[in-house]
């Protein structure tokens, strides 16, 4: 973050400003040619910039929606319908905002699984990783409150179920729920405070993102082989190399995003949310938005007869309902502990075959949790949900700590530059002698 005061720019106006506010060198050091970046980053490193761009898109589309939206139970649903039908390009802006929320979570989940695979949470990036987990929590709060605003059936009943989670807290639970509602059920006071907070939270996220990037720039990006950049040979300037690569990724992402906006705008949505909220009729099947499903599955796994509850001391001290709520929050908060749960000296899964295998099991397990969260809690789904919930915690609390301390990883290359050259050599050799078997690494 230190400004490079001696830096001279060609343009005198720039120099004049730079002398008083060193903003140009700040940008150059953050995103420009003066920000050294490992030269071996793959496309999974595009998702950070995509997340930032999506946050920007959400803020712009959201502020525009707020110009036409009315946060009152008698008008909210109609005002959103008016946005869809009467406001010029209102349909476009709302579909961008609606699908943008899903895109945001897709990008963030890929970004996080990238971090888990390449061990990006290891020292010295623990705080960087933990800030990321906080951003995820803030995004979840924002998206949850945003989903209540159109005041459809899912808005209302989703809000009812989620706010009622707090009633599980002993003694003060019911008072907390009343405090959140501002009444005796989800009603007008609830809607207007959710609107206020939904407007606020994205800017809190912006603040967290600034800290996240600040922490990133202290030690720079991790990379696919997880060893630190040592010499200039290992890095290239962020501009123009990664600005160009990020722009290409942005184009690809926008194609994907706009496909949904224009051709399948309600793909991620629930038809029930086009029915106005009715406090006397619960929809037959309440499902949260897809990005909450794995956590919803964990919440529901805790029934009185779930062995993780019934046969453990958990059942002596709390109800199954409270256990489910705590487990749901714990499933996210535990990620804060990744840097310490994973005791390996080698970061990247590329050199940790056993860890890698369990990583993929964990990944599949998360997908299955998501599927379970979208099914009614009956029959075999209950058992699948309980098994995958158990595995989720087993992975983080036992498998990762144990194998990271027992496994002997393969030796990573000497440097980023050595790895890149070795790969380039192999590629060119393969190209010229396609029939030849791969050369033994000789150096």
């Amino acid at each position, binding site marked *: 973050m230190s400004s490079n005061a001696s830096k001279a720019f060609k343009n005198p106006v720039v120099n004049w400003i730079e002398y008083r506010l060193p903003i140009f060198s700040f940008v150059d050091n953050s995103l420009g040619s003066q920000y050294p970046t490992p030269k071996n980053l793959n496309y999974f490193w595009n998702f950070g910039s995509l997340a930032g761009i999506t946050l920007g898109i959400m803020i712009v589309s959201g502020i525009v929606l707020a110009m036409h939206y009315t946060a009152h139970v008698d008008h909210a649903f109609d005002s959103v319908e008016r946005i869809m039908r009467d406001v010029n390009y209102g349909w476009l802006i709302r579909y961008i905002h609606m699908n943008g929320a899903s895109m945001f979570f897709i990008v963030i989940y890929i970004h996080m699984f990238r971090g888990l695979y390449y061990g990006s949470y290891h020292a010295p990036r623990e705080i960087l990783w933990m800030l990321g987990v906080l951003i995820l929590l803030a995004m979840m709060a924002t998206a949850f409150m945003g989903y209540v605003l159109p005041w459809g059936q899912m808005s209302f*009943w989703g809000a*009812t*179920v*989620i*706010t*009622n*989670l707090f*009633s599980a807290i002993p003694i003060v639970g019911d008072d907390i729920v*009343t*405090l*959140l*509602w*501002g*009444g*005796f*059920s989800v*009603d007008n*006071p609830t809607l207007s*405070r959710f609107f206020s907070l939904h407007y606020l939270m994205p800017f809190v996220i912006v603040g967290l993102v600034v800290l996240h990037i600040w922490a990133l720039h202290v030690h720079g990006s991790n990379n696919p082989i997880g060893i630190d950049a040592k010499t200039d040979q290992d890095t290239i300037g962020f501009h123009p190399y990664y600005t160009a690569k990020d722009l290409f990724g942005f184009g690809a992402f926008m194609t994907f995003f706009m496909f949904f906006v224009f051709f399948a705008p309600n793909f991620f949505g629930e038809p029930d949310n086009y029915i106005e909220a009715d*406090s*006397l*009729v*619960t929809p*037959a*099947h*309440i499902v949260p938005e897809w990005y909450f499903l794995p956590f919803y599955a964990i919440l*529901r796994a*805790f*029934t*009185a007869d779930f062995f993780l509850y019934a046969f453990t001391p958990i059942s002596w001290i709390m*109800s*199954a*309902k409270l256990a*489910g709520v705590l487990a749901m929050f714990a499933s996210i908060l535990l990620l804060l502990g990744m840097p310490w749960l994973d005791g390996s000296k080698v970061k990247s899964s590329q050199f940790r075959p056993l860890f890698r295998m369990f990583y993929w099991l964990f990944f599949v397990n998360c997908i299955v949790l998501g599927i379970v969260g979208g099914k*009614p*809690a*009956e029959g075999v789904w209950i058992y699948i949900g309980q098994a995958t919930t158990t595995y989720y915690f087993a992975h983080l609390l036992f498998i990762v700590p144990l194998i990271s301390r027992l496994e002997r990883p393969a030796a990573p290359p000497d440097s980023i530059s050595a790895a890149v050259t070795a790969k380039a050599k192999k590629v060119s050799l393969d190209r010229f002698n396609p029939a030849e078997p791969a050369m033994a690494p000789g150096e």
Partner: protein
Amino acid sequence: MSDTAKPLGDAEIDDKSKRDFLFTTTGTVAAVGAAAAAWPFIHQMNPAADTLALSSTEVDLGPIEEGQSITVVWRGKPVFIRHRTSTEIKSAREDDKKVLPDNETDAERVKNPQWLIMVGVCTHLGCIPLGNKGGENKGEYGGWFCPCHGSHYDTSGRIRRGPAPTNLAIPEYTFVSDTRVKIG
């Protein structure tokens, strides 16, 4: 005045306990002040006076025949009023002896056994259980069934199976006459 310029240790003034005292009292006053200033910003979120003033509801029970239920709205919440059949009352009383997740006898839950009056909000996470209208799923115990996460309530509104921790709540009510009830 020159005394004060002397390096500490030469003439050390023993005022540690005085300083500790000042430090603690200042800190305490500041903390109480901060809490007092924060309270209005928290308490504004609690129900406002007009919300609290929501009146009680009077219901005419006359038209509800045996085996029928109605739903009325009280404080924005549904209240179930069921005119129970004698078989329902009998099965509710028989189950008094069983060990239930939330032990309550049927007699503790009604003022007049014919009329079961409860807040129609699932004690799990607040969905409205099915079973108050004809043709709806009444669950395995013939009372109510919450489809959200599968809670089964019996003919006394007691939780029998599923994630809900407690029986359906009983609101405050009084019989104004034989056929009129005042809720709240």
